[in-house]
C-alpha cells in the first residue's frame, strides 16, 4: 500500500511535469482505504441512525442545505440554491438547483424531495423523529418545494442536514419496494436494497456493504459537483484501535478514524504519519432507568444525584486524554447555550454518601451496569465502565459489569430495558434543541422510561418552550434552566466529551473533522 501511495504521488508529480500526458495518471484507480469502527445496522437513510451511516450518507447522498466542511456554525446551500421562511415560521420554501442528476442519470426534481422526505417521516424508523415537526411536503413546481410545519421549529434547517433527509431517486426506490405513504412503516420493502445500493446525487455510489466487514463506495460518474479525487473508497470495519494503528503503520490503510488518545504520542513520532486532534461533540453518560421495576434503586432521584457526586471526573478526563473535556450537562461544550466546563460537576464523596443514606441505602446496594463492547471516539467503554465501577465502590455501590455485543445491547437501550447503562450520544444536528431528546417523553428520555406522567411539571414546561422558542435571548435562558435542572435532577450523569483523533498517511490532504458527518471523503486527495 505504501508503495502504491508512493507510486501515486510519483504519478501525480510526473503528470504535473508532463501536462499533456497527465491522462496516464487517471488510468490507475485511486483507492482510499479507511479504517473505521462500524456502528450501523442499516444504510437506508430513512432507517439508519449512527455515525457510520452519517459518514456514508454524506458521501453518497446530498441534502437541501449543508454545513461548510470545517464548521457547523452556519448553513449553506446544497441541492437548494436558496430558500425563504414564512412570517409565522410554518412554511419553508426551497428553490432547487436545476442541473442535478442522480447517479442513475435521472434528473433530480421536487417530486424526489417530496418522496424522500415523506418516506423518511412515515417509515417511523430510528431517525424519523427528525421529521416530527414536518406536516407535509409539497412540490410547487419541478424545482420548488414547500415544507409545511405543524409548529415552528427553530432547528429545522440544522435537521435537514442530517442523512435522513437525503434526497433519493424516487422512481428507483419505488421500483425496489419503496413506499412513502402513511403505511410506509409496514409496506416499505426497500431497506435490503438500499443497504446494498444508493440512488443519490452525492459524489460517490454505494457499491456494496458487508456488515461488520467493509463498505465500498465508487465514484459517481454523474456527479453534478467537482469530481472527487479518489475513484474508490474502501471503509474497512476495524473495531480495535490497536489494529487500526498497526494497519496504518503498515500502510494498509490511508486513514484511521478511531485511534485513541493513548496512541497519539507514538504516532506523532512517526514521520510518515500525521495526526488530527479536536474535541468531539459526543457525550458519554450514565443512564438510570426511571421505572422502578427496571431500574430498582437507580430510579431514586437521590441515588441519581449521589451517582453524579460519586464520579471521579478528573480521573476520567485523564483516562480519556487528548482534547477531551468534562461537559457540564448532556449538551456538549461549545454548543449554543451550553454550560462551559467550569460549570461542570465536581466530585464530592461525602455528599454522595449522605444522599445514599437519605435515599435509604446507607450501606449501598448492588447493580448491573449494561453497556456495549465498543470504543467511542477512542474511549473503550469497558475501561470506562471499570473506572465507574471503582468510583461507585467508594460510596458502597457494588457495580457488576454486564457488557453486551453492540447490536444486541442497542436493542435493550432503545427499548428502555436497561436499568443502569453506559452510552453515548452524537448530535444529529448542531443545535441545543437536539438535547431536548434527553427530556421526559422524548427519544432518549423514553429509553429510561422518563415520561410525561413521572416527570416534574417544571421540566415538562421547559421542554415545551425549548421546542418552539425562536428568539435567541429567550433560548439562552431556557437552556440555562434546563441544564441547571439536569444537574440536580434527572436520570443522566454525563461523564466525558471525548477528543477526536484521526491518524493518516502524511501527504493526505483535506482531512477535516466535521461533527455532523465525521469526515467528507470527497475532500480528500494525495
Amino acid at each position, binding site marked *: *500500500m505504501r508503495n*502504491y501511495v508512493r507510486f501515486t504521488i510519483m504519478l501525480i508529480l510526473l503528470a504535473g511535469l508532463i501536462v499533456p500526458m497527465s491522462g496516464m495518471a487517471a488510468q490507475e484507480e485511486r*483507492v482510499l*482505504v479507511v479504517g473505521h469502527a462500524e456502528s450501523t445496522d442499516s444504510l437506508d437513510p430513512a432507517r439508519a441512525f449512527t455515525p457510520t451511516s452519517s459518514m456514508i450518507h454524506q458521501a453518497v447522498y446530498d441534502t437541501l442545505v449543508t454545513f461548510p466542511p470545517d464548521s457547523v456554525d452556519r448553513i449553506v446551500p446544497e441541492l437548494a440554491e436558496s430558500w425563504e421562511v414564512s412570517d409565522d415560521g410554518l412554511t419553508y420554501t426551497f428553490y432547487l438547483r436545476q442541473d442535478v442528476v442522480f447517479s442513475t442519470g435521472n434528473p433530480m426534481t421536487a417530486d424526489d424531495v417530496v418522496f424522500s422526505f415523506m418516506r423518511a417521516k412515515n417509515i417511523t424508523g430510528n431517525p424519523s423523529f427528525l421529521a416530527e415537526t414536518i406536516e407535509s411536503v409539497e412540490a410547487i413546481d419541478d424545482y420548488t418545494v414547500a415544507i409545511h410545519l405543524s409548529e415552528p421549529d427553530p432547528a429545522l434547517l440544522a435537521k435537514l442536514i442530517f442523512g435522513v433527509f437525503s434526497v433519493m431517486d424516487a422512481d428507483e426506490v419505488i421500483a425496489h419496494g419503496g413506499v412513502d405513504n402513511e403505511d410506509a412503516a*409496514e409496506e416499505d420493502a426497500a431497506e*435490503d436494497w438500499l443497504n446494498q445500493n444508493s440512488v443519490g446525487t452525492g459524489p460517490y455510489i454505494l457499491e456494496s456493504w458487508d*456488515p*461488520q*466487514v*467493509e463498505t465500498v463506495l465508487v465514484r459517481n460518474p454523474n456527479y453534478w459537483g467537482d469530481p472527487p479525487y479518489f475513484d474508490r473508497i*474502501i471503509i*474497512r470495519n*476495524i473495531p480495535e484501535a490497536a*489494529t487500526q494503528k*498497526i*494497519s496504518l*503503520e*503498515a500502510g*494498509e*490503510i490511508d486513514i484511521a478514524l478511531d485511534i485513541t488518545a493513548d496512541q497519539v504520542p507514538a504516532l506523532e513520532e512517526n514521520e510518515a504519519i500525521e495526526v488530527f486532534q479536536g474535541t468531539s461533540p459526543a457525550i458519554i453518560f450514565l443512564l438510570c432507568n426511571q421505572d422502578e421495576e427496571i431500574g430498582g434503586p437507580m430510579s431514586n432521584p437521590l441515588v441519581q444525584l449521589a451517582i453524579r457526586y460519586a464520579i471521579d471526573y478528573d480521573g476520567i478526563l485523564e483516562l480519556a486524554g487528548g482534547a477531551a473535556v468534562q461537559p457540564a450537562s448532556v449538551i456538549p461544550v461549545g454548543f449554543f447555550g451550553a454550560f462551559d466546563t467550569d460549570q461542570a460537576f465536581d466530585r464530592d464523596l461525602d455528599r454522595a454518601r449522605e444522599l445514599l443514606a437519605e435515599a435509604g441505602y446507607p450501606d449501598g446496594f448492588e447493580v448491573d451496569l449494561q453497556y456495549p463492547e465498543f470504543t467511542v471516539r477512542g474511549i473503550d467503554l469497558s475501561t470506562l465502565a471499570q473506572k465507574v465501577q471503582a468510583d461507585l465502590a467508594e460510596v458502597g455501590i457494588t457495580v457488576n459489569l454486564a457488557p*453486551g*455485543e453492540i*447490536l*444486541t445491547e442497542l*436493542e435493550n437501550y*432503545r*427499548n428502555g430495558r436497561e436499568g443502569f447503562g453506559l452510552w453515548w450520544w452524537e448530535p444529529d444536528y448542531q443545535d441545543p434543541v437536539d438535547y431536548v431528546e434527553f427530556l421526559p417523553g422524548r427519544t432518549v428520555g423514553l429509553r429510561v422510561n422518563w415520561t410525561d406522567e413521572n416527570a416534574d411539571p417544571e421540566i415538562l414546561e421547559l421542554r415545551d418552550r425549548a421546542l418552539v422558542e425562536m428568539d435567541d435571548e429567550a433560548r439562552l435562558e431556557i437552556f440555562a434552566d434546563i441544564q441547571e435542572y439536569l444537574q440536580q435532577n434527572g436520570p443522566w450523569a454525563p461523564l466525558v466529551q471525548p477528543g477526536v483523533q484521526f491518524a493518516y498517511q502524511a501527504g493526505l490532504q483535506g482531512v477535516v473533522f466535521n461533527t455532523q458527518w465525521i469526515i467528507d471523503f470527497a475532500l480528500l486527495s494525495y
Partner: protein
Amino acid sequence: MPLYVYILRRLALMIPLLIGITLVSFLIANAIPGDPVAANLGQRAMSDPEIVEAFRREWGLDKPVVIQYITYLNNLLHGNLGRSIKSRRPVMDDLKSFLPATFELSTFAIVIGMVLGVAFGISSAVWRNTVLDFVVRLISILGVSTPVFWLALILLFIFYSRLHWLPGPGRLDVTVMPPPTFTGLYTLDSLLAGQWGTFLNALKHLILPGFVLASYTTGLIARVTRSSMLEVLGQEYVRTARSKGLHERVVIMRHALANALIPVVTVIGLSYGNLLSGAVLTETIFAWPGIGRYAFRASVSLDFPAIMGVSLLISLIFVATNLVVDVLYHLLDPRLRTG
C-alpha cells in the same frame, strides 16, 4: 467383512447420533430465557401481528415442544436453518459463505501440523534419548500448552507490528480484491484465475493464523508419532528386518513407518475435525471471516438460529471425518480387515 458393508453399518449407526445432535442444539436454543419470536424478529417486525403470526406458524411455536422439534427437523430436512438475527440472512447462506475461509485455514494448518508433527515424531523416535529427542519432546509439550490467543498476539506483535514481515488480520490486504469465486478458497481461486499477486498475498495471510492454529496439532501429532514409532521399532519384524542386514533407512522407511503411521492417521483425522471448531479463537483474533468467528459472534449476540446452524455443521463434519478415519484405519490395518 467387506468394506462396503462396514461403511453401510457405520452410516446406519450415524442416524441416531445425528438425531441426538439436532436434539441437543434444539434444546440449547430453547433453554434460553426470553421469547424466541422477539429474539428472531427484532422490534420492527414484532409490531406487525401478521409477521409474528407467520413466524410462529413457520416454526410451530404455538404447538407443544415436541411438535416444535419435529417442525424444526422438517425445516432442517428442507435445508431451512432459519434466518440469522444478526446478519438477517438465511443461516444456510451464511454458512455457505463462511465455510470456505475456515476450510482453507484449517487445511493449511493440518498440512503444517502433519508435516512438522510426523517429521518431529519420527526423528525423535529414531534418535531416542538424544538431545534432538529431548528438544522435540519439549516442543511438542509446549505446543499443546500454549494458549492460542496468546501465541497469536505474540506472533502478531513480532512479525506484523514490529518487523512488518507478515501481514496482519484478514484473508487479503485491504487493497487486494478477492479473486472471482469458484471454490471460495482464495489461494485456489486466485490460481484458477491466474492472479499470482493475489495468490501470494492470500498465502502470506495464511501463514500466521495457520501456524497458530497448527501449534496444538503439531505437538499432538509429534507425540503420537513418536510413541507409535517406538512401539513398532521394538517389534519382532523390525528386528528381523534389521538382522537381515537391511540398511537402517530402509528398515525405518519401509517396514517401521508404514505400520507406525496407522494410529497417526487416526489422530490427524480427529485433529482435523477439532481444528474446524478450534478455529474460533484464531479466527476471532485474525479477523478471519470463517465459521469459527461466525459462531463466536452468534454466541455473544445470542443469535440462536446461527448457533444451531454452526453446531450442526461442525458436528456433521466431525462425524464425517471420524467415519473417513475409521475407514482408512480399516484399509491400513490388515488385522482389522480380516477380523
